[in-house]
């Protein structure tokens, strides 16, 4: 058997786990490992400019490919800088493996230089974590980490490695386990047949059904199965923010997103539904509004691989614990066998009602008479320019909601945003992680002048590795969503929600070696987009687009109300 040092075993094991890219930043406790990285070429390393960005890059990669993203950081500040990124992945159930250096074992607990209790600090935001205690355990721990991160409800796993576990002169027999079995971890493989049967019976009797699908469908790679079920039943389908793309955004049976900034028709249909089929969604507070008033007439079927997501906020009438794809397969099989079909008259009149609701708001917004654009029209323009086929990442705030509402995603894994944690600074590094793995695809980061400054240093990484993402900055000079809430709830007192002394973004990106284009009026946008995807296609382009700071995101649910209680504009309420 081959003898390898701990550092070499780590890198070899990552390779065997299928890792192509490590996103990271070296430091004292990881120098032996970085030397092992240097001596091989199978696993490529991407040097970021801040460790938070490494975690978001790995996260973006994971969301687009479905495979775990890998982060490597040194002990102390290197490790703690990844915390926001780990929490982001945890909240959205994204597979990730974080290799964190640690001080020498004999120094642990002595407040040594660059020592942090990384396992302790990260404990509430990881699916699991390991500390390496014997170098020969490294291959097995890596295999376990990937297995845990990517199965069941995925999530981040941290491996803490003290420096003395990686000594170059101490060599051990290397063998990577072929199969991992953990006696205390057995993710569900299939749903309960009896429950699935009950669910199908309920669906067949439904007169006002809604299928409410979330990120779990995308994570499970089961969008095709969901589409088949929706179309087979001819039921309306709404998606959560995390689920956008699992049912086609331009599909006839699509009601749009639901929840706080969901469409009028999606929220109203949910409120009036008699049966709701929740698939890989978790009844988040940004979806349900007041849980006590949630969908009063609905029987709820809830499919989720995580039992703790079921009946957490909303009690399920038919809970089904299992992988979405497997459960949907079984549902389809039962529908094939069933002698019944849904009540066609009832479904037709339900659609008639929904189509009336669709007319009420229909994504309307007022265009300015001046050249100053509304953010919505910029999103519509980028959607048209990219044929609706780009990978779109976003940061957090108004621009995120506008992108979710006005970019119609027809494919899964294309809409990449921090839905659960709401992490500003996520979008740009996530876009980088995606672009490196899909160099031929269009990758656009929709951001704002606030969010982009939270990880803008990565412009430097993009130059080093030639990562030509497109940054679409909707610049309203304000922290738009904060401002919107201040307008609505604090009589327009804009406490610290405006940005003074913004940099000249064009000059800034040029200083980093990229292309910056300022767009101040409507007439300038078409040419700017043309250049972005034309003559500058192989360059990173930063589009600094001035948009109307007065614009609000609508619809917006009225706090503590039902699903259908919404503001549809500054003056119109349901």
């Amino acid at each position, binding site marked *: 058997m081959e003898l390898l040092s701990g550092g070499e075993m780590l890198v070899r094991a990552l390779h065997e786990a299928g890792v192509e890219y490590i996103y990271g930043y070296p430091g004292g406790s990881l120098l032996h490992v970085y030397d092992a990285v240097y001596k091989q070429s199978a696993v490529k390393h991407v040097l970021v400019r801040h460790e938070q960005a490494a975690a978001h890059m790995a996260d973006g990669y994971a969301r687009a490919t479905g495979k775990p993203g890998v982060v490597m950081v040194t002990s102390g500040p290197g490790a703690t800088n990844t915390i926001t990124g780990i929490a982001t992945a945890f909240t959205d159930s994204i597979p990730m493996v974080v290799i964190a250096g640690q001080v020498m074992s004999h120094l642990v607990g002595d407040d040594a230089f660059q020592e942090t209790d990384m396992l302790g600090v990260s404990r509430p935001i990881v699916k699991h974590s390991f500390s390496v205690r014997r170098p020969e355990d490294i291959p097995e721990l890596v295999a376990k980490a990937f297995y845990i991160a990517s199965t069941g409800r995925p999530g981040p796993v941290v491996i803490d490695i003290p420096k003395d576990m990686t000594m170059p002169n101490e060599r051990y027999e290397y063998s990577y386990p072929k199969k991992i079995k953990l006696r*205390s971890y057995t993710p569900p493989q299939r749903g309960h047949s009896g429950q699935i049967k009950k669910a199908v019976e309920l669906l067949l009797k439904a007169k006002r059904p809604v299928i409410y699908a979330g990120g779990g469908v995308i994570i499970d790679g089961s969008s095709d199965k969901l589409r088949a079920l929706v179309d087979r039943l001819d039921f309306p389908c709404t998606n959560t923010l995390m689920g956008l793309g699992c049912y086609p955004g331009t599909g006839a049976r699509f009601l749009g997103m639901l929840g706080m900034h969901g469409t009028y028709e999606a929220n109203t249909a949910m409120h009036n539904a008699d049966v709701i089929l929740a698939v890989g969604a978790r009844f988040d507070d940004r979806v349900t509004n007041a849980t006590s008033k949630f969908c009063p007439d609905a029987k709820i079927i809830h499919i989720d691989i995580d039992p703790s997501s079921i009946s957490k906020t909303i009690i399920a009438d038919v809970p089904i614990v299992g992988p979405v794809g497997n459960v949907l397969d079984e549902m389809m099989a039962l529908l094939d066998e069933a002698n019944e079909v849904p009540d066609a008259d009832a479904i037709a009149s339900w659609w008639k009602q929904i189509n009336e609701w669709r007319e009420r708001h229909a994504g309307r917004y007022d265009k300015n008479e001046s050249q100053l654009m509304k953010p919505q029209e910029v999103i519509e323009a980028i959607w048209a320019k990219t044929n609706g086929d780009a990978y779109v990442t976003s940061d957090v705030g108004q621009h995120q909601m506008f992108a979710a509402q006005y970019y119609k995603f027809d494919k899964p894994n294309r809409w990449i945003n921090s839905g659960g944690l709401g992490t500003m600074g996520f979008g740009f590094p996530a876009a980088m992680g995606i672009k490196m793995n899909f160099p031929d695809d269009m990758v656009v980061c929709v951001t704002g002048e606030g969010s982009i400054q939270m990880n803008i240093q990565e412009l430097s990484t993009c130059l080093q590795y030639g990562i030509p993402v497109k940054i679409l900055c909707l610049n309203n000079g304000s922290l738009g969503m904060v401002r919107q809430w201040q307008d609505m709830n604090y009589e327009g007192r804009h406490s610290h929600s405006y940005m003074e002394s913004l940099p000249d973004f064009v000059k800034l990106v040029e200083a980093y070696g990229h292309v910056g284009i300022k767009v101040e009026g409507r007439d300038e946008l078409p040419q700017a987009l043309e250049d972005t995807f034309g003559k500058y296609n192989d360059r990173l382009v930063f589009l600094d687009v001035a948009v109307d700071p007065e614009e609000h995101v609508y619809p917006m649910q009225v706090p503590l109300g039902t699903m259908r209680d919404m503001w549809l504009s500054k003056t119109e309420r349901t």
Partner: protein
Amino acid sequence: MRHIISILLENEPGALSRVVGLFAQRGYNIETLTVAPTEDETLSRLTMTTHGDERKIEQITKHLNKLIEVVKLVDLSEGAHIERELMLIKVKAVGAQRAEIKRTADIFRGQIVDVTASVYTIQLTGTSDKLEGFIEAIGPGCVLETVRTGVSGISRGEKILSL
């Protein structure tokens, strides 16, 4: 309602901190907690008591089960079970009180395990209710110090919690 949750936990460093952390993180309350290795050295047995309605307890057990190191879990209060807690209690015992306290300890099947001219140290085993009953019986005024192990429990009959 009070629940007694019994867990077989991987006997690994950090495992207990995940269990305790989970309670803090999600706002659940731990009333008592005991943990010790089992006859299988790879496993620890942990018993905790907590309060909550059915929905809360369901969430607690689901989240505990999600922890990778939790191998098996049972809510003992769902079935017939035996629970015990041990208390060492130091009480002021002077004059006529000495005989009275001794009598009360006998009634509760407690044992006096240490004696000075003015202090008895009594060992008492039973359900939590019984321990509290004893304190009430001797009068809280003479209690100098108490230490309790927290609840341990096991199912009645042939039901066992093992791998």
